């Protein structure tokens, strides 16, 4: 029984982590909390839904949806954040700007798809055969989701460490002015950051939609707020923190359900988050000192 719970926790945590990584990447590089991230998450899920319904094979639909999410991320920056950067508007104004874009994206999705729950119709997800591996039961889709999420996060980590683009991103995150002075092309790096963060968020959205075989306009709402708990726990701006935090929150949620406290699950998650903020706002991997902005 415990192993099944562990698997469930890993599965849930992996998607949370994948979502949170995009959140924290943008925060780490630009000090912006991008509240449109969840809207992009949702948009990608719908995109994959439509593409599959038109006959595109799922793996390709996944890639196209994630890429589309990445492009929306770049547009998001151009429209809502870049003008504010130019006039030095601080960190809270972009937050509100991102809410504006989120409202627009969700409204458009509602307009196109309506408000009812949608499903991935011709993939046979609901009748997928259950695989038994010892004490754990899962479907091929679930395993794929888990492995894919982990692979994506590993790829991101590698990219940030070992590629020139990754170094540029880390430089901008550390000190924007210095990075620019050292020749890093700021706007291009920022655009790349948004592409990556949003593509990962979109990927999380498709996986989330597949996991529960449900895509609705407000599927992003709970995860948007849980994502906050994840990045606070892990440390704002820390990729490792987002991953670790995602799995911890996933574990906390599964554990809460296992001990019969499932209706209190969210209160426990946010209670943990609140406690972290009061005691150690930097989270597990964040900077030691309280950020003053």
């Amino acid at each position, binding site marked *: 029984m415990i192993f099944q719970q562990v698997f469930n926790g890993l599965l849930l945590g992996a998607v949370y982590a994948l979502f949170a990584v995009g959140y924290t990447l943008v925060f780490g590089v630009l000090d912006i909390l991008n509240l449109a991230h969840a809207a992009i998450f949702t948009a990608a899920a719908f995109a994959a839904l439509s593409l599959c319904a038109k006959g595109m094979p799922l793996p390709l639909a996944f890639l196209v949806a994630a890429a589309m999410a990445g492009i929306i991320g770049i547009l998001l920056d151009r*429209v809502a954040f870049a003008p504010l950067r130019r006039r030095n508007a601080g*960190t809270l104004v972009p937050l509100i700007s991102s809410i504006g874009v989120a409202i627009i994206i969700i*409204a458009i999705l509602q307009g196109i798809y*309506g408000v009812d729950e949608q499903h991935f119709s011709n993939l046979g997800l609901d009748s997928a055969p259950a695989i038994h591996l010892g004490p754990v039961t899962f479907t091929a889709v679930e395993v794929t989701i888990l492995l894919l999420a982990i692979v994506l996060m590993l790829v991101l980590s590698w990219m940030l460490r070992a590629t020139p683009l990754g170094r540029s991103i880390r430089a901008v995150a550390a000190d924007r002015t210095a990075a620019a002075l050292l020749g890093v092309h700021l706007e291009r790096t920022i655009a790349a950051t948004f592409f990556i963060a949003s593509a990962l968020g979109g990927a999380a959205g498709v996986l989330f939609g597949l996991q529960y075989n449900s895509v609705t306009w407000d599927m992003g709402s709970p995860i948007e*707020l849980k994502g906050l708990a994840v990045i606070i726990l892990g440390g704002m701006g820390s990729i490792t923190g987002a991953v670790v935090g995602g799995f911890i929150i996933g574990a906390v949620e599964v554990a809460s359900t296992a001990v019969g406290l499932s209706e*209190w699950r*969210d*209160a426990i998650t*946010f209670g943990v988050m609140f406690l972290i*903020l009061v005691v150690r706002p930097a989270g597990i991997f964040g900077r030691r000192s309280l950020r003053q902005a």
Partner: protein
Amino acid sequence: MTFLADFYAKHSQLIDQIGVNAILALSLSVSLQAGQLALAQAAFMGIAAYVSAILALNAHWPLIASILAAMIVSSVVAALLALPVSRLRGIFLAIATIGFGEIVRVFANNLQDLTGGGQGLSSIPSDATTPVIYGALILVALALWLLSRTKFALAVALTREDEYAARGVGVDVGRVRLLSLALGGAIAGLGGALYAHSSFFIAPSDFGFGRMEQILVWCVIGGVTSPLGAVLGAALLSILPEAIRFLHDYRDVTNGIILLAVILFAPGGLSSFWRGRPRAPRPAETRA
């Protein structure tokens, strides 16, 4: 005259909504003026709504009494919340208060016997009529206007502009933050109680992050340091969905577009048009 009477009859619910929304927007603007992005107004609103509804339904308290009790409760809760978050600034304060709001939502959903759980409470006496709502709005506006002439208002502005320099001139920043949060809680409580007594039915989903975002949008569009702006922002965005019904499912798009337009082109909100200052005041951006 009959035109007005007909107009009112057709739109009375909307008119009431605008009044309540304006009060809620004012409650947030109080926090924002002190430089605190404290996003718990929806939670305070919800707590007060439930308190006043429960008192009215179970204990048959009269309207004014249940409203006052609700305001006191939400104000005390706000003051208590201010204590653990006193060291948090900017985004961290915002997130902590959002988390608080979610915890409140879960409690409202789970304390079935008290709150009716997810189903909510219904048959709340609708005795918060239009005159009551707008009377309350006028009282709040008056109170805030009077407050703006006091030293406290100066302390609030100084806390917002530069906390360290404010301490350096003798402002007890901690107390200012706590009082502004408590005041915001009281006003949000008023809004919540009026909301309960003007909508037959309340449920936890009425007071979640979605509602909080709405209140924030009203405030930003009106201009965060302008009470009049907050009221106008609430009014504009309450009327808008009704006015553009013809857009059907794409209605909310305009809300988002307006918000973006304000942020990008008139960051001081609508109020900047009559104040002449296009800059939006920035909540505590200082470094140590």
